[in-house]
């Protein structure tokens, strides 16, 4: 694979992209010009405003096609690479048993006012996701699923009571950055309540970027399409690392 690539329309290097947006400008040639300007600022040049229509008296919607000059440098792409092996459920169980000689305790739920449990259930419930069984299926995991709309204080209390090794929170609603605010609040509460002895903190949801773990104050972030096996494998890896660190 080449290091430098550009978008591909129908010819290598043509740079073609499609974009659409609304501007708060009445429909007309001036609006098209404004769309063209925006597209140019986005690096699309030449930009073709191929469609525009009025939305009410004050807005115009546009579709623009054109070629961007930007070059993607693949060496500069930062992604959270999975730094641990994907284990099968039985490998997870054997390793955990050896490491801990007790079940690993996982407490999960949706925090804040978020009631989207399907995602966390996909990770935790036996039923699982994408053909993989959820964490409840793993013999060496004890799973406590608190469900929806759990308040942060309640979560901390339950995590403490259950002696949780890991806390998994889901955040699906992202309007006004609710997911970011809630997760930060959660991380701060655990830090305050338990300091270094806090459990592993894991956040997940379709609009999280795994690169955000640091700024959110959690150990790991999982995004859209996560499978239970990835999470179980990570848990093993994290426990292992912790043990090694402690030893």
């Amino acid at each position, binding site marked *: 694979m080449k290091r430098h690539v550009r978008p591909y329309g129908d010819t290598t290097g043509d740079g073609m992209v499609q974009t*659409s*947006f*609304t501007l708060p400008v009445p429909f007309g040639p001036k609006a098209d010009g404004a769309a063209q300007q925006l597209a140019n600022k986005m690096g699309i040049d030449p930009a073709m405003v191929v469609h525009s229509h009025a*939305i*009410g008296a004050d*807005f115009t*919607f546009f579709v623009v096609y054109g070629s961007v000059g930007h070059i993607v440098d693949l060496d500069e792409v930062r992604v959270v690479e999975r730094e641990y092996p994907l284990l099968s459920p039985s490998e997870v169980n054997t390793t955990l048993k050896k490491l801990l000689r007790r079940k690993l305790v996982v407490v999960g739920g949706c925090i*804040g*006012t*978020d*009631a989207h*449990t*399907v995602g966390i259930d996909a990770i935790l419930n036996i039923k699982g996701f994408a053909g993989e069984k959820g964490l409840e299926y793993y013999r060496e995991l004890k799973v406590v699923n608190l*469900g*929806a*709309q759990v308040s942060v204080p309640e979560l901390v209390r339950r995590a403490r009571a259950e002696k949780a090794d890991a806390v998994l929170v889901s955040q699906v*609603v*992202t*309007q*006004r950055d*609710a997911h970011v605010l809630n997760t930060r609040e959660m991380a701060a509460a655990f830090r305050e309540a338990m300091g270094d002895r806090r459990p592993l903190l894991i956040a997940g949801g*379709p609009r999280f970027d795994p690169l955000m773990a640091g700024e959110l104050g959690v150990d790991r972030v999982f995004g859209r399409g996560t499978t239970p096996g990835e999470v179980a494998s990570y848990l093993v890896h994290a426990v292992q690392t912790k043990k090694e660190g402690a030893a």
Partner: protein
Amino acid sequence: MALLDLDPKVVATARRLAAKAAEPVVAIAKAHTTVAVERATLRLAGITGADSTHRAGDVPWVNRVVDTVREQCGLEHGVVLPAFHALREHDLATLTELAEATAAGQVRFTIPEGRDRTRARKAATAAVTRGIRTVDRNRAQREKLVAKLGDPAQRPWIYLIVATGDIDEDVVQAQNAARAGADVIAVIRSTGQSLLDYVPEGATHHGFAGTYATQENFRIMRAALDEVSKEVGRYVRLTNYASGLCMPEIAVLAGLQRLDMMLNDSMYGILFRDINPIRTFVDQRFSRQVHARAGIIINTGEDNYLTTADAVEAAHTVTVSQLLNEHFAHEAGLPDHLLGLGHAFEINPKVPESFRLELAHALLARELFPDAPLKWMPPTKHMTGDVFNGYLLDGFFNLAGVLTGQSILLVGMMTEAVVTPFLSDRDLALANVRYVLDAAGGLRDDFRPAPDGLIVKRAHQVLGEAVDLLARIVDDGLLDAIADGTFGLMKRPADGGKGADGVVAKADGYCNPASDLLEAR
């Protein structure tokens, strides 16, 4: 014209079983009241406003009064007797003054007896009657406006959501949506509201993924829609949510502000907000009585089951729930033409013949409830970030609505999996609906499911499964069925859930003029 050739005997059995399954729950609902029902009653009696001096933020006066009454003399006789008795005792002119005095610790609530009781009851009845008259006037006003401006030219009515979190932005979006063709505007609520045990006050601007339901927000939006209704030459309806812990109060506010439809399901709160089942059934009954009086179309929430359960496997649970919702609604006084029973286009599009299966389900609902204004909900669960594909799927959803004669079409958004709708999403979605209605509006005439074909067989199968499940529910009890995860795979035991402590068994001398007036219809 009936296309499925359903056996009327099977249909009658289904209805009979639903009634039987609902019976014990109706009995429970009649035997209890809740803090929310009592607050709703006082709201009908005229209390408004909030205690803005309270350190926990604005607390509505009605909560102060009901909470204090409960503390001091319990709610088992209802709130109006102690409240109106105290009003007279302390010589206060209005309920708001009573509330202020209550907050100041100056009022001592007791259950009046004998003549005091009669007097309190009378005063309360008079006050509540005034409230109900406002509701009646609003209903008449709606009828007048509809007569003058007209209903939408076509079925299904086009139902659009706004969800900015800010009532002022909502107004911009709603008016533009109406101009672009929306017949019904629903203002989605902020994520947290359903678990609040009070109704916030005033105009609000900071909801998360929705705008708070408040009396003032209702008023602002209704006024904005009245304005645009004149402009577009048809009456644009307004919808909100009578659900969550304040279901009955919000139903009252809707009646007072001339809302036209309300999301109001008999089990949604239990299943999807983990609200206590008894609380929900009690609140639900009262709120539906209010809706019946106000001429408000209720929208039930069967679509939600298909977001947590599989739309093919769980198809019959939708039918069962529709039959239960129908029964509860009838029992509370709602006629068929106010029953916006819900269902949805949520089959995984990868399932072979998924579109035909959708048609089977949609047609089954249509033929089971021929006089109900069915609400047809768009794909959500299988929408992805591929907005092109999503736009297509929404087009086929629209077509299914047209082919099966749905009454209210909730317009799907291509950004369903991404964000709450952009202005342009709504506009594009309406263009999609318009294309389908214009281009294929009459295609229903040419749609004749092959007798014994996939569609007919599937509809019969779902109805059969629904009857079986209803029989099991009759045997086990509806509350146990809910506890077992029958609906939407959510398991909700009867004694669990939020708001259970707001439920109160009625005493023998329980008095509630609102219930009496609404029940008397």
